């Protein structure tokens, strides 16, 4: 997680470059664990409430746009591939390829956010934003059987939906910012085969944000679509 202005990148308190790299990597992994626990609290809330209010949650889930969700999942997966390829390029010293992959990653991240924006806009139109404008009259479609649900419980579903996807989107924004900065630094030649730790560690962050979405997508969008 340290970054310096020149090669050699060795910081004075480390014995050698390998120790520094290993330290940075372990530090990043520990930070990722904190992110897992951070989102985990919301996953816990979601699971508890889904059990308690299954019908309402399923009805809310059925109102989400599964196409946008699926496309976003694909976008993130592709962006994870570009991240891995960026690291490979850094390792091989291919500066322009590295910058290219970093830029593509940022563009894919922005694509994700734009699609999310459309999804949120749709929520506004359908009056599914919790608060005074919330209005939920849809029913839970259980194999053709229409079961009415408590709109209050549906509002809880959407509260969690916005909280979880909103927090995820915030992390995406941070990730896009991070990768933009890295792209600029990479263009300037900061990263060599001997030192590309920030690219690797930022990549770990991006992959974790991807993994969080990998779980968010089925849990939010795919509760009960059979009919």
């Amino acid at each position, binding site marked *: 997680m340290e970054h310096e202005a020149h090669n050699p990148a060795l910081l004075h308190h480390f014995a050698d470059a390998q120790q520094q790299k290993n330290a940075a990597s372990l530090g990043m992994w520990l930070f990722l664990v904190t992110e897992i626990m951070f989102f985990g609290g919301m996953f816990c809330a979601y699971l508890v409430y889904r059990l308690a209010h299954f019908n309402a949650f399923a009805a809310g889930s059925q109102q989400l746009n599964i196409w946008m969700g699926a496309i976003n999942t694909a976008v993130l997966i592709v962006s994870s591939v570009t991240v891995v390829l960026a690291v490979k390029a850094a390792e091989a010293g291919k500066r322009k390829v590295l910058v290219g992959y970093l830029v593509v990653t940022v563009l894919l991240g922005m694509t994700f956010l734009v699609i999310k924006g459309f999804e949120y806009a749709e929520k506004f139109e359908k009056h599914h934003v919790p608060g005074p404008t919330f209005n939920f009259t849809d029913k839970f479609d259980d194999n053709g059987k229409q079961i009415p649900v408590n709109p209050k419980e549906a509002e809880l579903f959407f509260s969690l939906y916005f*909280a979880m996807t909103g927090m995820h989107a915030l992390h995406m924004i941070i990730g896009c910012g991070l990768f933009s900065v890295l792209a600029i630094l990479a263009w300037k030649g900061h990263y060599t085969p001997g030192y590309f730790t920030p690219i690797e560690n930022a990549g770990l962050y991006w992959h974790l944000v991807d993994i969080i979405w990998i779980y968010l997508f089925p849990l939010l969008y795919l509760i009960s679509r059979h009919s």
Partner: protein
Amino acid sequence: MASTVIPANQAPAPTPKLNYLNNGHTLKSWLLTTDHKRIAILYLISVTVFFFLGGFFAMLIRLELLTPQGDLMQADTYNKVFTMHGLIMVFFFLIPVVPAVLGNFLIPIMLGAKDLAFPRINLLSWYLYVVGGLLISHVMLTGGVDTGWTFYSPFSTEYTNTKIVEAGLAAFIAGFSSIFTGLNFIVTIHRMRAPGLTWSRLPLFVWANYATSIIMILGTPVIAITIVLVAVERLFHLGIFDPRLGGDPLLFQHLFWFYSHPAVYIMILPSMGVVNELITCFSRKRIFGYKFIALSSIAIAVLGFLVWAHHMFVAGISLYAAMIFSFLTFFIGVPSAVKVFNWTATLYKGSISYATPMLYAFGFIGLFTMGGLTGLFLATLGIDVHVTDTYFVVAHFHYVMVGGVLMGYLGGLHFWWPKMTGRMYPEAWAKLSALLIFVGFNLTFFPQFILGYVGMPRRYWQYPPEFQALNVLSTAGASILAAGYLLPMIYFVWSLRYGKIADANPWAAAGLEWKTTSPPPTFNFDETPVVTWEAYNYDEIPPWERRAPVAR
């Protein structure tokens, strides 16, 4: 980098002209330092400020409780006073104190390293602490918070008019300070040990901080998200804990206590680590059962995550969950007891001396044991129903937090003061303070066990007149305790100018920190040490000299 084998019984080096304290005199050299020792001193100053601030609120509580009626302040004000006392003491004193002051200072030196793995993140940790502290001070000055430090929903999410979001933000930021400290410690301990320093040769203080850091990493994010959800509910009316929306206020409590219970192990483990260092030095013996103590720290860290709902026995959780958590809570006593037994066994046939740090270590063992045993009372469902939310609980946690954490901290502060400052504190005054603290502490909090058992509820601003006598005793004890705490403030500052100059190893103690000068140079060692000896090798260290190190 040349490395040298430092023989186990080599004479300590003389005090150098240039050390970390005088290496740069400008404010900038302190406020932009990346030297872990300077950061530890910065923490020492800020943590002490918050300790006295929290203590000020404690004084207000005890003054109000001198009489059964509410006469010093309004009921609402009293709510704010005990909330601020709790918030400040928990988040801005107890959680950071030993890791950020003693841990920051000592861990790199104990490992033979030049600094922590991420010195700039270490500085960031301090700034985050300061920002959190400024926020909570602002909250305090603009009306305070009245929910109790546990800010339960729905009072915190909906009904109170006080600055929950700002106070929550303060705790959130302080939480990140904690996370970064823990992250730094884990990476440093894994990656930066000196050659020859295997895990089984580490001082147990390092093991203790390692276990603490695991808790910091795993637990703190959960309270972070809980605070976010509370803020989101207050600001945007997303009702996650709102029963009208099918939410459950108890979910808040589950998420809150998932961190806040392990948090108490963040508080106690480092102090237990200190006690290992003190007991061995002042009985001139190797620790009994090194591996057991090391592993018991890890066990406490892991088991600490399995017991949180024992704070919720009467809140409305299911009976079966209560039984499970009660059962799991009993297990936590085991590793703690292992430590107490091992310390006792270390003392056996040791050559015991009674310098101030050792007095604090004895105080810790006795008072922590009492606090811990009363924890078992509380783990017992039937008893808990009777004493929960009474002064019994208050007494229990003050025994472990003040009798435990604070005693360990003070013992460590005295023990390592010569290392940190190059000066000895005045031993006679220090012994007097230790005595005042011990007497004052017991007088303050033992009556509270009785008060709780006979039914006085906690967080109450007035009480039935028959409870007054015990309350008066408690307040009297608190004033003695306050004197006990003020004295070290005075004599520590005095010692900086007038204290006897300490050499590198005034206690003839084992450990790498005593092989470098007092105070250490900025990069800790002139040459990287190579460790070939086991921890606490007191059988190899020259015998204790009776006249050293007590200052006259």
